[in-house]
């Protein structure tokens, strides 16, 4: 025979539940931000104070760090685009497309700029990191897919306008796609304007290995 709970038992049960819920409050967004940001300040080491600054977010990075399913508002997106456009520096040569062979090397170069054992990775120049995330030459299996495949990118032509657009896309991808996963390779200083022109050539030059059938 099943026992029927008395009203008093129910009341006690409900109070316990309420108490438990009351206990289990989480710090709010403001508080969490404060806690986490102080943690960031205390949790990393670097060979120079300058390198520690990498942890500081710029305005665009702050906007782009949406928690969970939170979405970018149109105003925020517009601000990121504006900041991004303003960040772009164009190559001194005035030419957007450099040497595609140099670009191909860069595309497969995933090194440079990392910090380990109290040292900054010593490199004449940083790698382009492309292979990590993008399909490149047709048939190359050892490529990532976090970004879209760039195989045959040159099909859209190699006009000046395409070259400029491509340059800007690499220099600061957020100019066109605010907060996308694509690193702002020129704007953060990871690549030089000249290196980016080589990547542009690799993408749009009809002779480039990327555009060979």
């Amino acid at each position, binding site marked *: 025979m099943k026992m029927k709970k008395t009203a008093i038992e129910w009341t006690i049960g409900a109070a316990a539940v309420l108490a438990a819920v009351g206990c289990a409050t989480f710090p709010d967004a403001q508080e969490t931000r404060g806690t986490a940001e102080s943690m960031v300040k205390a949790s990393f080491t670097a060979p120079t104070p300058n390198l520690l600054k990498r942890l500081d977010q710029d305005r665009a990075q702050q906007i782009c760090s949406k928690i969970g399913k939170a979405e970018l508002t149109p105003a925020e997106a517009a601000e990121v685009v504006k900041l991004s456009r303003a960040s772009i520096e164009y190559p001194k040569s005035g030419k957007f497309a450099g040497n595609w062979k140099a670009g191909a090397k860069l595309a497969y170069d995933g090194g440079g700029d*990392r910090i*380990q*054992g*109290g040292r900054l990775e010593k490199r004449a120049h940083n790698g382009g990191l492309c292979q990590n995330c993008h399909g490149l030459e047709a048939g190359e*299996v*050892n490529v990532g897919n976090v970004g879209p495949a760039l195989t045959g990118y040159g099909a859209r032509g190699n006009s000046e306008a395409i070259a400029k657009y491509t340059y800007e896309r690499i220099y600061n991808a957020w100019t066109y796609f605010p907060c996308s996963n694509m690193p702002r390779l020129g704007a953060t200083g990871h690549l030089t304007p000249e290196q980016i022109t080589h990547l542009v050539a690799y993408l749009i030059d009809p002779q480039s290995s990327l555009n060979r059938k």
Partner: protein
Amino acid sequence: MNRSRRRVLELGGGVAALGAAAAAGLIPAGAAAAAWNKPGFESKAAADAIKSLGASGMTESRDIAITAPDIAENGAVVPIAVTSRIPNTESISILAEKNPFPLAATFDIAPGTEGYASVRIKMGQTSHVRAVVKAGGKFYTASKEVKVTVGGCG
């Protein structure tokens, strides 16, 4: 943790130059040296290594199965299992053809033990992995390509 990254990266170089010390005669004779196939393990060409096993001619055999990944995520640890269904299998050898010293292992198998061996090898680059089986005094072979992607994730 200093320079740990560099040391991992040097592994690739180590694999590539694998066995140079053996060739230079730097390997002291261990207790098992009597059985250890020095000329075979020091051969730089797969053909020479195979000769050292006593095989002059080999027959391609479908009764040899090589279990290995098509793509190895890490050339330092490539699992290879060889099963020989050829009766009276006496030995199984495993070669990574493009390793600087191709012969990686020879397993002598007593009657009553299955023609099977599973092991892990280092591979410097994409290569055919060849199994050479000696059975009833004759030699049989099979191979499988294993693509090696050095490094990979962190």
